[in-house]
């Protein structure tokens, strides 16, 4: 049981390039999330999904896209990388059911630098 895995761990992009951050969970969780963490700031929600085929915007969605074709995978796409997207990206999942606490399980993060 690997939990939440993210690839790559590190990446350097040039302005205008695109890339996909991969996220996979093997806990059969229905909810998945993408956050970014900038230095000295708390995690900010980019996008989330409540199940396969359903996604919604979080607090800071501009410049990103997501898809959720399976329960396990929730990739995050950057189409035109900008220096403002330099950050650490965390994927998380949770299994919120009626009456349960939404405890999120996080991946180890992807450190992205855009130059």
């Amino acid at each position, binding site marked *: 049981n690997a939990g939440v895995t993210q690839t790559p761990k590190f990446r350097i992009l040039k302005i205008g390039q695109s890339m996909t951050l991969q996220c996979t969970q093997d806990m059969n969780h229905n*909810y998945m*999330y993408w*956050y970014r963490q900038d230095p000295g700031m*708390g*995690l900010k929600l980019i996008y989330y999904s409540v199940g396969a085929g359903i996604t919604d915007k979080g607090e800071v969605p501009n410049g990103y896209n997501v898809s959720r074709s399976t329960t396990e995978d929730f990739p995050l796409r950057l189409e035109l990388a900008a220096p403002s997207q330099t950050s650490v990206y*965390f994927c998380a999942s*949770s299994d*919120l059911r009626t009456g349960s606490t939404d405890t999120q399980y996080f991946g*180890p993060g992807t450190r992205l630098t855009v130059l």
Partner: protein
Amino acid sequence: DQQVKQNSPSLRVQEGRISILNCDYTNSMFDYFLWYKKYPAEGPTFLISISSIKDKNEDGRFTVFLNKSAKHLSLHIVPSQPGDSAVYFCAASKGEYGQNFVFGPGTRLSVLP
């Protein structure tokens, strides 16, 4: 405009002593609060939570206190151990839904042997 504040970026405590990490929030609609712990090069891990219907929740060495009138919560770690050295994030939410979580900037705790 930060809705969740952790005004101490860092805290140093001697092993065996109590660590107290503080968190303040501004939105009176928040009714669910959590603490996460993060080690370097790892993702945050859930530590403890508290609902607004309580003012205290304990789990082993960790206790969270909630003062709704002051919009303040604190995490107490007793006794502190070197393995507790990490960054601690406070989060608040309206309802127990992850998409509503608002995270503070974190406090780096160093427990000295």
